[in-house]
């Protein structure tokens, strides 16, 4: 019994905004000025991107915020976030770090009576920050993955991965005779399953990879790792770096295709 | 109904549903000279109002 998650690349039209950002947003008692024709804002773009998630439909009912664990962080919540966008306060929203506390868990849109896709808006707002001002941790992971042949957020070199896998495998084969013929194939062409691997394990907790191997072994599954693009994680998605996100997905898919596997088994 | 030939107009009305609206319309019609067929699918008349406890804003008993 194994969980399957087939990731499908989705076409998204992305508008990139360049804003200058300085320091954190301060919630000051300064009146929000609304006048005349509004300049083009998220509001307008969202309508084009996700008509069903039209944020101006918001009833300000509070359901999203009532259910959101990020409510209150950075003095924000989904409703306030939405409200600021409705009022065209794009710049202030951009300054807030709140969108980075959203885990896109979708509890909000799950119940929103107007089905407003708040996570999608969060994604757009993240994407609108200049790349160099997005949180370093995620950006680093994304960059590392893009720059790594493994697509690993930890930048794990291909050789390291191969070494660790084989090393651990051998160790276990030796120590646990019942699993003497357990395999952890890499780049096995035509295998049934393409298994990816979160970089954390090979890098820091190699033993944690073993249970999965054992299960696959016992289940008699015909699987393989890939030496390249084997990393499961994709931080570019979280960075709202669509371009690189897509690049990574394409690279992983290409690798799977290259190995001629039938199914892409995502462990993430 | 036959608008062209008023002689053929039936002096009867079928009312479907016997909640508060159905009963009122049936009473009005019967009280002013029309034969009413009141049709209800449950065994008694009264509809949802009979299930209510009190009614707003007067807090009158709904029964």
């Amino acid at each position: 019994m194994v969980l399957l998650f087939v990731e499908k690349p989705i076409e998204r039209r992305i508008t990139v905004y360049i804003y200058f950002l300085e320091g954190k947003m301060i919630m000051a008692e300064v009146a929000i000025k609304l006048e005349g024709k509004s300049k083009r804002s998220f509001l307008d773009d969202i309508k084009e991107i996700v008509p069903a998630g039209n944020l101006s439909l918001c009833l300000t009912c509070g359901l999203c915020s009532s259910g959101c664990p990020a409510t209150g962080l950075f003095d924000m919540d989904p409703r306030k976030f939405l409200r600021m966008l409705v009022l065209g306060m794009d710049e202030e929203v951009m300054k807030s770090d709140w969108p980075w506390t959203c885990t896109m868990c979708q509890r909000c849109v799950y119940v929103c009576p107007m089905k407003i896709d708040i996570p999608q808006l969060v994604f757009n707002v993240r994407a609108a920050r200049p790349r160099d001002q997005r949180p370093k941790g995620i950006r680093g992971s994304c960059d590392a993955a893009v720059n790594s042949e493994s697509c690993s957020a930890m930048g794990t070199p291909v050789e390291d991965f191969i070494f660790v896998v084989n090393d651990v495998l051998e160790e276990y084969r030796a120590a646990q005779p019942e699993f003497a013929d357990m395999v952890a194939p890499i780049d096995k062409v035509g295998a049934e399953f393409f298994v990816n691997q979160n970089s954390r394990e090979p890098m820091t907790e190699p033993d944690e990879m073993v249970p999965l191997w054992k299960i696959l072994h016992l289940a008699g599954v015909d699987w393989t790792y890939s030496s390249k693009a084997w990393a499961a994680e994709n931080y570019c998605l979280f960075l709202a770096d669509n371009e690189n996100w897509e690049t990574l997905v394409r690279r992983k898919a290409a690798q799977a295709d290259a190995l001629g596997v039938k199914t892409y088994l995502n462990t993430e | 109904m036959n608008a062209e030939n008023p002689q053929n107009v039936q002096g009867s009305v079928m009312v479907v549903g016997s909640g508060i609206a159905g009963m009122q319309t049936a009473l009005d019609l019967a009280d002013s000279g029309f034969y009413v067929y009141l049709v209800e699918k449950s065994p008694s008349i009264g509809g949802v109002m009979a299930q209510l406890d009190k009614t707003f804003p007067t807090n009158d008993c709904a029964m």
Partner: protein
Amino acid sequence: MKIKFTVQDPCQIVRKSFGDAIAEDFRYAIKQAIGEENLLEMSPNKSNNYCCGGGGGFLQSGFKDQRLEYGRIKDEQIKASGATYCIAGCHNCHAQIHELSHHFGGHYNVVHFWTILALSLGILGPNERVYLGDDLKDVNVFHPETAI
């Protein structure tokens, strides 16, 4: 076995993808491994489960205080369930919940789904037990001599 488990439904595959149906499959597997009587549900759960706070890049974003605050509900939920183990089906959940337990002094353990699966199959070696608590450290150990 009298140890009680609870299960964290990953937002990605449950609410966002396959809904309650996959959550049920997930439970089926877990119950096979630990025994139905040992599964304590959090509430809400399945499609309406609370996110742990590890996803969406939150773990890497650098806002640690906020992230732990975010996870407070999850921590409370796990504690309220009465379980001492939380089974996670997702790397991020695993990492976040592990940290929550430590941060809020919950003293519950978090284990990967397949760790518990392997444990129940009796194939879990001593080095693969980093995340098991003392009560399970020595259960069904596979080749104890391989301990490092």
